[in-house]
């Protein structure tokens, strides 16, 4: 039964383990700053998992993901702070904005391939970035938006870092379960089929454009939702957070994690979040550190962290089988 479940729902199995670990993670930290870092880790998990759908399953590339994340953050921040609308409305509007921008951008762009698609999404990311900077009256311009209200549902305000962590936890786990369920099911198979042999899929009744757009918009909604959660965590958003370097970093982390692996993306999110906090003290050198770490992963960990993990498991299985055969004879 356990083996059947692991084979039939590999991504769901990963998410269940991840959810159990994350449920008790706050018990291991001692102050509010670390709890906030854990919240950021969950938000980054959503961000990387959603980009993994685009890269690993739809076989596409996006250099606009960081900017779409920013769109969700700004929409939620503006609606709750400037217009004093409830967090739920801001969060819902952020998701809607992610859907709409992905749909508008994805429909024409996804006809492009490889470098051209990368260029198109790069252009979209840059347009959004410029808008965040230039629409002073709305976004606060380069200075950003400060004083974003904490998330609240009804009368309950998630002002304490631990309560906010568990709000993010509930949203993140529901989203990850949905992602896992879809990827382990017929949508995931269709995406893998399209990625593996697009011409055959097309000639056998699958519409590649539809599946790619579905993946792109689904990922866009999740990225924008993550943006909304980020805005109410940091209570401050500025354009520099959502620049091209964030999109490039996300792309690199998904590849480093293992481009078709949800588990790899979650591990990459942990590395990204905690290491980022640690190396922050070294300022400019932190980028150098990340660059060097990525170089090592690309050179020495073929298939990313997930690929290396799979190879390690295979080696262990092989060694165990040989040992059993040895003791049997």
């Amino acid at each position, binding site marked *: 039964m356990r083996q059947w479940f692991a084979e039939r729902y590999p991504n769901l199995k990963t998410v269940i383990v991840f959810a159990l670990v994350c449920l008790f993670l706050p018990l291991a930290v001692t102050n509010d700053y670390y709890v906030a870092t854990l919240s950021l880790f969950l938000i980054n998990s959503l961000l990387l998992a959603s980009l993994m759908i685009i890269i690993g399953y739809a076989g596409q590339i996006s250099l606009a993901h960081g900017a779409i994340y920013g769109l969700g953050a700004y929409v939620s921040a503006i609606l709750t702070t400037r217009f004093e609308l409830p967090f739920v409305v801001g969060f819902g509007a952020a998701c809607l904005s992610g859907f709409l921008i992905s749909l508008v951008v994805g429909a024409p762009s996804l006809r492009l391939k490889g470098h051209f698609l990368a260029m198109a999404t790069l252009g979209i990311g840059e347009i959004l970035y410029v808008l965040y900077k230039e629409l002073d009256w709305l976004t606060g311009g380069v200075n950003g938006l400060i004083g974003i209200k904490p998330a609240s549902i009804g009368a309950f305000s998630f002002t304490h870092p631990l309560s906010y962590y568990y709000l993010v936890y509930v949203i993140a786990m529901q989203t990850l379960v949905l992602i896992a369920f879809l990827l382990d099911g*017929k949508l995931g*198979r*269709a995406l*893998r*089929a399209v990625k*593996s*042999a697009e*011409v*055959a*899929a*097309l*000639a*056998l*009744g*699958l*519409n590649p454009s539809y599946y790619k757009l579905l993946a792109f918009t689904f990922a866009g909604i999740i990225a924008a939702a993550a943006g909304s959660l980020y805005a109410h965590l940091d209570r401050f958003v500025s354009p520099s957070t959502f620049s091209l370097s964030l999109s490039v970093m996300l792309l690199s982390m998904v590849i480093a994690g293992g481009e*078709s692996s949800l588990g790899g993306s979650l591990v990459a999110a942990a590395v990204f979040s905690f290491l980022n906090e640690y190396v922050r003290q070294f300022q400019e050198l932190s980028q150098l550190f990340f660059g060097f770490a990525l170089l090592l992963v690309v050179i020495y960990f073929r298939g990313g962290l997930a690929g290396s993990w799979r190879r390690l498991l295979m080696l262990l299985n092989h060694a165990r089988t040989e040992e059993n055969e040895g003791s049997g004879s």
Partner: protein
Amino acid sequence: MKVLEVKGITKRFEGIIALNEVSFSAVSGQIKAIIGPNGAGKTTLFNVISGLLSQDRGKIYFEGREISNLKPFARARLGIGRTFQRSFIFEDLTVFENVLVIAENVRTSTSGYLKPEEVAREALLRAGIEKKMHLKAGLLSTGERHLLEIARALALRPKLLLLDEPAAGLNDTETERLAVILRRLAADGYCVLLVEHDMKFVMNNADEVLVLHRGEIIAEGPPILIQEDERVTEAYLGSDLLHAQD
């Protein structure tokens, strides 16, 4: 019953005529082979029928309905399944998933109320590859890949099957197995259109043969007549190859 009707199809590639006024029809329960030397336009014809290439002139009818301007996936959903000369299996999926992904995502008029898993199992059984269903598709041999492609096309529960060189790379036993599978499909009412270089296979199994030469049909009829056709002998095969079944 007439399943496919191709009327005056012309296709050019930058001035080179790949297909010139090609017209023919195929009926259910029939195995029709399309033969011709390399570059005759056989695969181009398949690509035009399945919609992967658009024709410059002419029309295509499927069960009386014009499909000339439909997208490839829309044609597949009507009941046109195909395989490819170069293997295009979904390598990362298992054999079962390769077939299931079509059965569960593409509902054709013949899918009925069958569960996708049932359709997939039936397709694997018909193609004779059910024993490999749990294997990763990327690990299959050349022959097994051809059978998987057929199973995948059968998952559409199609009325028309376009098979592009299904016997290529098969040994004698596998070829004979393939012949049995195709004859059984025809007996069950499928219309099988076959592009094949193996003349022995064609002459032994096709009900009708259509010969393409430089994009034009130069002969069409039962294998026995094709073998005696002087235009075919002169243009393409050579008498030894033509009598491959003897």
